[in-house]
């Protein structure tokens, strides 16, 4: 008896150490120097919590547990090693969905356990329902987000009549079912219907959100899974689940708020605005701005001219967008930057907070191409520098340099902080075609007299630029 109690105390102590390691780990992520060791600290904390749990005396058989851990670890390891950096957002979405799904299943089993034990206390009941609801939404929502980012589902916002009403009715039905589960009148069927309704709500909530807003959605769903984990912690009275889940819930919420601020749109607009629903509709909504510039000529430029302008500049600011990553041209771009630097040109990269498909995505993509992180500058740091720049080199970016965000109150992106590319002496835009960007809005920067357009595949154009600069 004494032995079991001391073992129990040992497990609790291990959970405390794990929680501290998680906190220190996240703290480590606050600087590129300590980030890697921070992540390792958190991983050690996780290992400790898992090993300690295996010693729990409630566990009757280990075969299934060990088998499950082996299978899951193998899947996770293979996925983590093979994913390309461009596909990182959908990978994170999938891992996040796994966690959410696990939380929903754990809640369901705990519900069944308590019902069989004879009673569902109110506090445990509420925790279980929250864990199941949030976990299930996170699971199905993450899978839809994955499908959109991977191109398996339509990337545009999917809308249909009475969408909000349908979602509202579904949410109300879920509430009624929750009440039936809590007062015991519904039985198991009510719980299963509750779970199914939650899964459906996850799908319906993410379907109307356009691909461009997926970073916000993933960030929000990340915090959801954290909260679902915390809720299962409440149901199981397990401290380490509560602490870790809440840490993630708080961080995910904060990141979501930061991203919405970077786009100057309230979270409700991101979630319910169906941004980028139909390209024709948004273009017409862009109104005056788009109409005024339509039909204006754009200035085409040859590779030779573009290379000359870059090579004889004093300062070049590179604005990379997701198009760069799609073309897998980060390495080639870094080569051009190196060639320019060798000629004495000052080169920096301007990274918009929503460049890429998740917060900070572009930084990862450029880091993969060996761009030192000191050259990556964020919006506030780089914007004052455009006035003194000779060339702003826009590669695969569109909406984040659209001046309409500054002055056209009719534009859907009005108010979004943008990179002031138009303030530099020359603007060189590498673009596949005149197709509008992710948000489906025409970009008046392309019609600016200072702007030169170099059309073609980004990787191709950049490789040619490199050759030509080398030959100069």
């Amino acid at each position, binding site marked *: 008896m004494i032995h079991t109690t001391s073992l129990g105390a040992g497990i609790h102590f291990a959970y405390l150490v794990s929680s501290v390691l998680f906190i220190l780990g996240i703290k480590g992520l606050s600087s590129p120097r300590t980030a890697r060791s921070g992540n390792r600290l958190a991983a050690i904390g996780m290992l400790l919590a898992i090993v300690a749990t295996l010693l729990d005396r409630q*566990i009757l058989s280990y075969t299934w547990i060990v088998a499950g851990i082996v299978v899951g670890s193998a899947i996770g390891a293979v*996925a983590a090693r093979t994913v390309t950096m461009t596909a990182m957002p959908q990978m994170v979405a999938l891992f996040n969905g796994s966690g959410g799904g*696990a939380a929903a*299943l754990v809640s369901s*089993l705990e519900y069944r356990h308590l019902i069989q034990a004879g009673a569902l206390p109110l506090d445990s009941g509420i925790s279980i329902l929250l864990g199941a609801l949030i976990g299930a939404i996170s699971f199905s929502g993450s899978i839809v987000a994955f499908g959109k980012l991977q191109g398996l589902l339509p990337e545009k916002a999917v809308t249909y009549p009475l969408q909000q009403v349908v979602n509202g009715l579904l949410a109300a039905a879920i509430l009624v079912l929750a009440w039936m589960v809590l007062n015991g009148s519904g039985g198991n069927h009510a719980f299963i219907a509750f779970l199914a309704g939650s899964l459906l709500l996850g799908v319906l909530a993410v379907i109307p959100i356009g691909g461009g807003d997926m970073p916000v959605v993933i960030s929000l769903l990340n915090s959801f899974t954290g909260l679902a984990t915390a809720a299962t912690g409440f149901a199981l009275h397990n401290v380490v689940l*509560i602490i870790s889940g809440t840490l*993630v819930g*708080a961080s995910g919420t904060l990141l979501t708020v930061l991203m919405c601020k970077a786009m100057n749109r309230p979270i409700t607009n991101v979630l319910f605005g169906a941004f980028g629903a139909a390209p024709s509709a948004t273009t017409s909504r862009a109104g005056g701005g788009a109409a005024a510039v339509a039909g204006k000529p754009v200035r085409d430029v040859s590779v030779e001219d573009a290379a000359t302008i870059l090579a004889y500049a004093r300062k070049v600011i590179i604005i990379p967008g997701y198009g760069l990553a799609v073309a897998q041209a980060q390495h080639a771009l870094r080569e051009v930057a190196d060639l320019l630097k060798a000629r004495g040109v000052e080169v920096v990269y301007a990274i918009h907070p929503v460049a890429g498909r998740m917060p900070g995505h572009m930084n990862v993509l450029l880091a993969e191409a060996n761009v030192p992180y000191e050259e990556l500058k964020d919006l506030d740091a780089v914007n004052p520098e455009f006035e003194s720049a000779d060339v702003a080199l826009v590669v695969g970016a569109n909406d984040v340099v659209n001046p309409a965000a500054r002055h056209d109150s009719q534009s859907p992106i009005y108010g979004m902080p943008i990179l002031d590319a138009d303030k530099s002496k020359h603007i060189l835009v590498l673009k596949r075609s005149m197709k509008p960007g992710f948000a489906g809005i025409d970009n008046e920067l392309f019609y600016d007299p200072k702007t030169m357009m170099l059309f073609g595949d980004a990787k191709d154009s950049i490789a040619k630029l490199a050759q030509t600069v080398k030959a100069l």
Partner: protein
Amino acid sequence: MIEHSLNDLTIFVLAIFVGYEIISKVPVILHTPLMSGTNAIHGIVLVGAMLVLGGADTTLARVVGFCAVVLGAVNVVGGFMVTDRMLQMFRKKSGPNEP
């Protein structure tokens, strides 16, 4: 039972403040690794999955618990590994890249 839940609630509220404090200091350039790193941390739900699977007494409960453990393990192992892969790429100006 209720005291137990109030204890849990205390920890929950304090953890919100800790979470907010440590995360507001993370620079933008590390937001993706932060997201995938915290994503790995909520994989701690694996511990809950292990506990319920360990107490499962029917085949159905075992299958559901097994699925929960698999999903949790995917989240933990995948999350930490992919974060490590990203972070090893972040480097300062290094010799070979210098012109």
